[in-house]
């Protein structure tokens, strides 16, 4: 294992110190491993918190700031944070208008957030609303699985719901926007290599030199199919076609097209991918209203990509365009 670390068991704590040092407008509660806005709680603004296992950076801590999250809870690498963390974060950001919990659909995350919401309601009477993202079309959505995983849509949702909260909308309305984003977004990912969890010291799974894992999860969960290595144009089809077919996206739809890197893939390859993705969308008559290309929801050092499409209307688009100022995503009006 070659990594820029000091001690595998100290990676999360040291990274939080780094974030604190690099971003003076953010604060870090090191005991609870929470990154939060320096101006939290904002009076009468709905607070938005998220969190999850570490190793997906910039998700979620890199999205704390104006127009996005108020706080992010960092778990151990690929391990959900514990209820104490979400409870503390909820208290930190509750300015009286309630708190939205953004939860990716993984068994552990859902249960830990659920326990935190129960504890917060019992302790402080905070008004809490939870929205679960489950956009990964690689997982069959049936009563026979834990449901689809929350992946790329989480990034878009945090931006769009964050803008809605910043405008002063009420908790129910911010929750409706968040659910609307999740309902209209779909994703699928592919790995060229495994990731290596620092504490494990070896790759999470074996993947041959000429193989790819189609439908991989962001924790290195194997996908449903192992396929031979293929050129970007074929990979784009393997990812975009199932995403398009699932919602389904149809001719004339406006979308935000998000080509994401999983951590170990250079930006130049993501642009090669984006070129293929936009070609396929054009062929289907799907209009790209906005795009996002880069590594925003990652799986440590995994090489690979995911494609997320979000069908948008004018309202979602104007919320997407609203100003945002976070370490990983920032633009002005």
């Amino acid at each position, binding site marked *: 294992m070659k990594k820029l670390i000091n001690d595998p068991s100290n990676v999360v704590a040291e990274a939080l110190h780094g974030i604190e040092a690099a971003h003076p407008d953010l604060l870090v509660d090191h005991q609870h491993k929470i990154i939060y806005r320096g101006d939290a709680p904002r009076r009468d603004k709905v607070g938005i918190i998220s969190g999850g296992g570490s190793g997906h950076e910039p998700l979620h801590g890199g999205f704390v700031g104006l127009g996005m999250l108020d706080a992010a809870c960092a778990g151990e690498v690929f391990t959900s944070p514990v209820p104490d963390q979400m409870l503390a974060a909820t208290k930190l950001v509750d300015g009286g208008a309630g708190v939205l919990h953004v939860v990716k659909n993984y068994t552990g995350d859902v249960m*830990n957030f*659920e326990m935190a919401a129960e504890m917060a309601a019992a302790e402080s009477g905070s008004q809490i609303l939870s929205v679960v993202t489950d956009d990964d079309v690689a997982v069959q959505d049936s009563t026979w699985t834990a449901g689809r995983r929350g992946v790329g849509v989480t990034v878009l949702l945090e931006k769009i719901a964050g803008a809605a909260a910043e405008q002063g909308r009420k908790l129910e309305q911010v929750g409706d926007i968040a659910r609307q984003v999740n309902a209209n977004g779909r994703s699928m990912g592919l790995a060229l290599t495994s990731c290596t969890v620092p504490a494990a010291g070896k790759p999470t799974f074996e993947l041959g030199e000429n193989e790819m894992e189609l439908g991989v999860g962001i924790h290195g969960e194997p996908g449903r199919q192992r396929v031979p290595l293929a050129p970007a144009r074929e990979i784009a089809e393997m990812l975009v076609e199932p995403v398009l077919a699932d919602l389904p996206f149809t001719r004339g739809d406006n979308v935000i097209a998000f080509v994401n890197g999983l951590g170990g893939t250079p930006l130049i390859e993501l642009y090669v991918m984006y070129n293929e993705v936009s070609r396929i969308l054009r062929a289907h008559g799907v209009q790209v209203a906005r795009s996002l290309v880069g590594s925003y929801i990652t799986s440590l050092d995994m090489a690979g990509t995911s494609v997320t499409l979000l069908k948008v209307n004018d309202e979602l688009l104007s919320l997407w365009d609203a100003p945002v100022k976070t370490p990983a995503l920032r633009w002005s009006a």
Partner: protein
Amino acid sequence: MSDTVSTVALDRWIRSFALLVAENKDELTDLDAAIGDGDHGANMDRGMRAVVAALDSTTPTTASAMFNKVGMTLVSTVGGASGPLFGTFVLRVGASFGDTAEVSLAQLAAGLRAGLDGIVARGKAEAGDKTMYDALAPAVNALEAAASAGMEKAEALEAALTAAESGRDATTPMLALKGRASYLGERSIGHQDPGATTVALLIAAATRAPL
């Protein structure tokens, strides 16, 4: 050996479980890497170390206080799905014990039943889903049967262990329907469930402690 279980014995059980988790940490992690995300051993070990430290700092004098402390520590330190599941299990067992310094075999069985119900409420698991439930439910059934048949404590715990271990082994051919393993579909078949493995260690710890 008396037929009741003292708080001292319960403390021994928990510490013995912590040792077994530490000894089997790598095996648990490997099982999880095959069908999950490869952190089960490390997470349970971190949690049980914290539990032992908590018990070292103050020794609760009642069974309910002890299990409450263990459960809260697990919820706060394990993370993942195992934290809420094992934490909820232990908290419910403790709540069922009440303010007593020792529990009978029947109370122990009733406590484990309450814990199992807690796991079902939290995780929505059913028999055959390839989860910790598949080792725990047979163990609880066996312990209840042994208690009502008036079996001696050591013998009853051995029966529970046998049931837990066959329950654990039976998870191997199962198709996972809950948790991360369910994402694998057919590919989850042929792998032993890590959560069920940990449950078998928990019951093994009770026979080793001994209670």
